[in-house]
């Protein structure tokens, strides 16, 4: 088994990406896009005056750019061109046609998939849970429709290679932006791609095989693949792959606490031989906490150092979970109270989030809070796919957490938004310019709208409108540099609140989890080694992996298991060998490879028990024994004396039945010659009896 980490990703919206060589198959885990890289582009300007005309004042523009290197990073430093998208850098180095299986663990892990499916030679089987597929499709559709803004502004793509990606141009970029384009070590340039089209998305969806919860599918009959909820997002999952030689569980970013998605089903992952642990999120949270607070005064993050007293057996019920749950609720409560204060002061609240969990919970809590404080404030969701998204959320009870499922069983709507829409508290519109919005627009209001990078989508327009208002509030997710993200909107007077929401397991829970799962082998990120040391564990061995390195994991089982039908097994003719220890039998049957197993069944044309002679012989026959065997059959044979043949081999020649037949016996081979067929077969029998054979 060979494992290569292609990218460790970066947060909720950019999950890790790995390649696994296993059982002769090549499996890709996830195909994300680093959308945070979009922040190096400028959003579409509102008026032409703010945008220097490149055609007419080319010269000045270039000189201006040259000076920019020394200047501090400003709104003008951002790239003004139709954005490209940054995919996993080393994925394009692999031969796409040789990937057999692609497993998508979350809607976010799907966003880069059309880049692959649109390529020539793509032939992989894509597996994705039905909920991830639907959400992923909506996210991609939204991406494509928001990107249209750029297309309309910059015009259609003229040449294949954009100006800004040229080496000369990159040289001129401020170092912060250049690092985003090229990566820290300057290797990431090849990952940039122009966005896919709506047709590419449709094509990608058709090429994806949608799975039900814990549905078992078989790739090539031999890999059994199953998805279990990871808790991170609706439809997001961990994978179990069973193969004859090894069982693997792939753990993506998972969370024990979820207020919307079905929670992390870790019980189903128990007792699997090999764990690939692929959650880097705890690392990132740690990093974020350190350099926080210097830019934003307010933060809702309250990462307290919790004691590591988690008993491995009751992981889900542990006090840690209660704390985490409480912590999340406190955090949301805090955000809601900030929002309430804001609207009370006459400001509006803007939430550019693409995290469904956050969106749904904030929606429910803020609307409840407004109601309890008797405030009449409109809530808007502005997105091209919001309608479909909300409709979808109310028809997938199978992928929701226990509390939501209980709502189904007691006959309530799964989420509050259905009721809010009916009571006209919540308005769902496709775009800022849609007539439905213009006719009932009221400020102050609370708006949920994409995109979290604040480079395109309705959020850009609203941010421009409110960024100067100190009473307004912007609620941001974590996982990107807010300084860079807000650059085009400087100076900002509105309040900004950046919150860390769980996007994976908490550091303290990783070790207890792995111990609970009782693996034999664990593949673990090298980067997490300083925080989590698994090396003292005795029950399993740990292999640490790093980005862009291929890890070889030795095989444990030396043979695959064959299942032989009892009726076939009863037909075996066991033969005891001259080497006393061995019993052998020829085996012939119809092979069927299905459900991850090799079955051997009685074939259709198989004769039941016809006596057959051996086809393969070994050893050397003893000539005297052969003569005895012949005479027993009533055949006389006479040994021709003294013939030793050419090539170091001793050859005896036996004449049979007065020269009617002849046997040439060597140490490595025997030749029987007789014109008469029945005599030949009798001689064969005799030789067979003095040799080992099968």
């Amino acid at each position, binding site marked *: 088994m060979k494992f290569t980490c292609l990218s460790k990703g970066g947060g909720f919206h950019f999950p890790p990406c790995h390649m696994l060589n296993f059982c002769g198959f090549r499996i890709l885990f996830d195909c994300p896009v680093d959308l945070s890289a979009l922040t190096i582009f400028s959003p579409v300007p509102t008026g032409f005056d703010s945008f220097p005309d490149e055609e007419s004042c080319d010269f000045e523009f270039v000189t201006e750019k040259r000076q920019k290197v020394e200047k501090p990073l400003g709104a003008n430093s951002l790239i003004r061109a139709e954005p490209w998208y940054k995919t996993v850098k080393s994925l394009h180095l692999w031969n796409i046609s040789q990937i057999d299986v692609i497993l998508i663990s979350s809607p976010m892990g799907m966003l880069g998939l059309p880049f692959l499916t649109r390529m020539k030679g793509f032939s992989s089987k894509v597996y994705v849970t039905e909920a991830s597929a639907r959400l992923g499709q909506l996210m991609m559709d939204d991406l494509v429709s928001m990107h249209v803004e750029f297309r309309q502004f910059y015009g259609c793509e003229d040449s294949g290679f954009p100006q800004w990606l040229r080496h000369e141009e990159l040289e001129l970029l401020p170092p912060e932006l250049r690092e985003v384009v090229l990566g820290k070590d300057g290797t990431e340039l090849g990952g940039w791609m122009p966005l896919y089209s709506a047709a590419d998305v449709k094509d990608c969806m058709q090429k994806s095989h949608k799975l*039900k*919860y*814990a*549905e*078992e599918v078989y790739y090539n009959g031999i890999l059994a693949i*199953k998805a279990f909820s990871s808790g991170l997002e609706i439809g997001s999952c961990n994978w179990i792959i069973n193969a*004859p030689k090894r069982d693997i569980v792939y753990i993506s970013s998972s969370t024990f606490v979820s207020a919307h998605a079905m929670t992390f089903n870790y019980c189903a992952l128990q007792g699997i031989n090999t764990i690939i642990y692929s959650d880097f999120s705890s690392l990132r949270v740690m990093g974020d906490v350190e350099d926080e607070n210097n830019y934003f005064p307010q933060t809702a993050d309250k990462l307290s150092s919790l004691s590591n007293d988690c008993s491995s057996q009751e992981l889900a019920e542990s006090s840690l979970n209660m704390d985490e749950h409480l912590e999340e609720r406190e955090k949301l409560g805090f955000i809601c109270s900030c929002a309430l204060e804001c609207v009370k002061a006459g400001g509006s609240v803007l939430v550019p989030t693409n995290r469904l969990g956050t969106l749904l919970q904030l929606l429910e809590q803020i609307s409840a809070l407004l109601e309890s404080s008797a405030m009449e404030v409109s809530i808007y969701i502005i997105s091209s796919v919001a309608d*479909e998204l909300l*409709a979808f959320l109310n*028809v997938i*009870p*199978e992928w929701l957490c226990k509390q939501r499922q209980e709502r*189904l*069983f007691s*006959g309530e*709507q799964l989420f509050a938004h259905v009721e809010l829409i009916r009571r006209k508290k919540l308005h769902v519109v496709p775009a800022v310019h849609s007539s439905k919005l213009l006719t009932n627009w009221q400020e102050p209001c609370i708006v949920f709208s994409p995109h979290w990078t604040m480079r395109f989508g309705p959020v850009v327009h609203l941010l421009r409108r409110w960024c100067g208002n100190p009473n307004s509030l912007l609620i941001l997710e974590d996982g990107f540099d807010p300084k860079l993200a807000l650059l085009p909107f400087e100076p900002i007077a509105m309040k900004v609140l950046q919150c860390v929401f769980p996007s994976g397991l908490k550091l303290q829970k990783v070790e207890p989890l792995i111990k609970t799962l009782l693996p034999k082998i664990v593949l673990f990120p090298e980067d997490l080694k300083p925080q989590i040391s698994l090396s003292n564990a005795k029950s399993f061995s740990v292999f640490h992996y790093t980005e862009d390195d291929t890890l070889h994991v030795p095989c444990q089982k*030396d*043979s*695959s*298991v*064959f*299942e*032989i*039908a*009892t009726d076939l097994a009863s037909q*075996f003719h*066991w033969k005891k060998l001259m*080497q006393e*220890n*061995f*019993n*052998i039998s*020829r*085996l*012939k*049957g*119809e*092979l069927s*490879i*299905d459900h991850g197993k*090799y079955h051997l069944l009685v074939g259709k044309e198989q004769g039941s028990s016809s006596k057959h*002679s051996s086809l*393969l*012989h*070994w*050893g050397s026959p003893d000539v005297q024994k052969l003569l005895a065997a012949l005479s027993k059959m009533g055949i006389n044979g006479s040994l021709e004396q003294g013939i030793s043949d050419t090539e170091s081999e001793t050859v005896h*020649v036996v004449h049979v039945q007065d020269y*009617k037949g*002849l046997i*040439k016996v060597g140490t*490595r081979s*025997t*030749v*029987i010659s*007789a014109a008469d067929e029945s005599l*030949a*077969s009798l001689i*064969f029998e005799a030789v067979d009896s003095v*040799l080992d054979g*099968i």
Partner: protein
Amino acid sequence: MAIDSLILGAGQEVGKSCVVVTINGKRIMFDCGMHMGYLDHRRYPDFSLISKSGDFDNALTCVIITHFHLDHVGALPYFTEVCGYRGPIYMTYPTKALAPLMLEDYRKVMVDRRGEEEQFSSDHIAECMKKVIAVDLKQTVQVDNDLQIRAYYAGHVLGAAMFHAKVGDTEMVYTGDYNMTPDRHLGAAQIDRLRLDLLITESTYATTIRDSKYGREREFLKVVHKCVSGGGKVLIPTFALGRAQELCILLDDYWERMNLKVPIYFSAGLTIQANMYYKMLISWTSQKIKETYSTHNAFDFKNVHDFERSLMDAPGPCVLFATPGMLSGGFSLEVFKHWAPSERNLVTLPGYCVAGTVGHKLMSGKPTKIDLDKDTQIDVRCQIHQLAFSPHTDAKGIMDLVKFLSPKHVILVHGEKPKMVSLKERIHSELGIMCYDPANNDTVSIPSTHYVKAGASDTFIQGCSNPNFKFYRNSAGDSDLNDKNFMQDVQVKDERVIEGVIVKEKSQKAKVVHQDELLVMLGENRHELQFAYCCPVQIIDLKEMKSTYLNSRNSMLCLSENFSWLQVLQWRLSDEIPEGNIQSYGEHLQIESFHVSLCLKDSCPYRVQDNHQNRMKSMFFCCIWSAPDEKLARKILSIMEKLNLSKI
């Protein structure tokens, strides 16, 4: 080892479905239904047959409910809350959501309206449902270390499922009720190809073959339309779930198209509430409804209103859906009492009514008076229309499913005895599958499959993984194949007959290896065992006949003396054995392992019979072959001995 199926209900009858199957020590109860036709102890399955002591927790591994109909789930609260079963219960999400509605509705009818002693309370229903584990379609559920279950779409009602259960190597499917053709709101049953030891299938319509649904739907709409346009009232007695939604989609759609304004009512809020469940569970409906839900949810009926009691005697036409179905009591019967005496009105009845209900009485013959009880008699003058569509599969569907799954054994349940007998015989004679139709409280035992496990070497596995495609031409219509259907007539199969050697070393697990590996394992050298024969072939020197040949066969000119005898032999052999693949290597020819070359030696050891008489006219060909090709070799030799080789 065996699979034992104890039929606790629905054996040679319809009602109280309940089968307890024991597979390799695991015991599963499929369905826990009640019989609507009985009011005494016969309404429930006889649970005492499972465990005399009443210790059901140890006697059963789990209970599986296929769908929310009362004859499949009706006894569950009684079994869990009164009998005290506390083990796991599995059903699909919609069944878990909708079953309590059905149970509560039934309980109310029993207790509130008929004044019977209640068998279980509302609390019992709620407590019972808390123990239920909901499953998704195709979700693989590991009940314990050995038992694995999986639900497949059955299409009978919302959330109806067939269940696959697997213990070790033994696999079975219990279908519950299913429908093989899609209807207005549900898709057709769907299942994977499985290797089953046992299939337990319903057989409601064991002998009926139905034509297209659309004709029957049209007929229904026509009757309803005619009635309301004549000012009559239409009563559709139905259970709150399933049929009500199907007919409602049908009527709502028709009303829209025909621009009808006659009101359609639902009795009680129950059905309205049920519609909400349907909206949330839309992913369990048919493909068409699923695709359109985000623009218009098919269960948002435009023309449907709540019914109020005061409307019962109000003038003017209307259509009313009222519970319960089959007119077994409750509100639908009450409305029936009011509306039955007028010949303008119409009552529609489902395709199947349980014996003992008013519906059943109406269906049998054409009664003008019906005795409700000792004191009440109803004049029946209204029209009666029997719905000819049913969410059950017909006989063809059952046969199709059995053929598709090709189990080793079939047990028929949920049907009427004479029809089941005829279906049983069909399955046995047409498909060659053992089939049983046990009565209630009978046990059927069938053997179960086991596999012997053996390790297999990598080389052997690699040898197995090469596909072995074979193309078959369908035997039917061989003669008149035209290009168009040629593709359909060719079938491709990947049949992999494999050969190897199984080795059992003392006190070690058996291992399958490729025969070449065997010698390495044993540390031995191969000993080649071959046959040889130097075969004389008659030749004719044609030099004197040359001229005649030249004249008659110009084309043969090229076959000059330059060609060797070996080549001449090859041509002749290929005439004689067209199926053989003769390969020429210059010095020798080869057919399989049969190797032949010209023998110019004066005395070849393999030239056993030296026939001096023919010597002058014979050439010798030395042949050598290995044992498996002995038959072929002898055939070739006999041909060669008869040949007269000649060249010009």
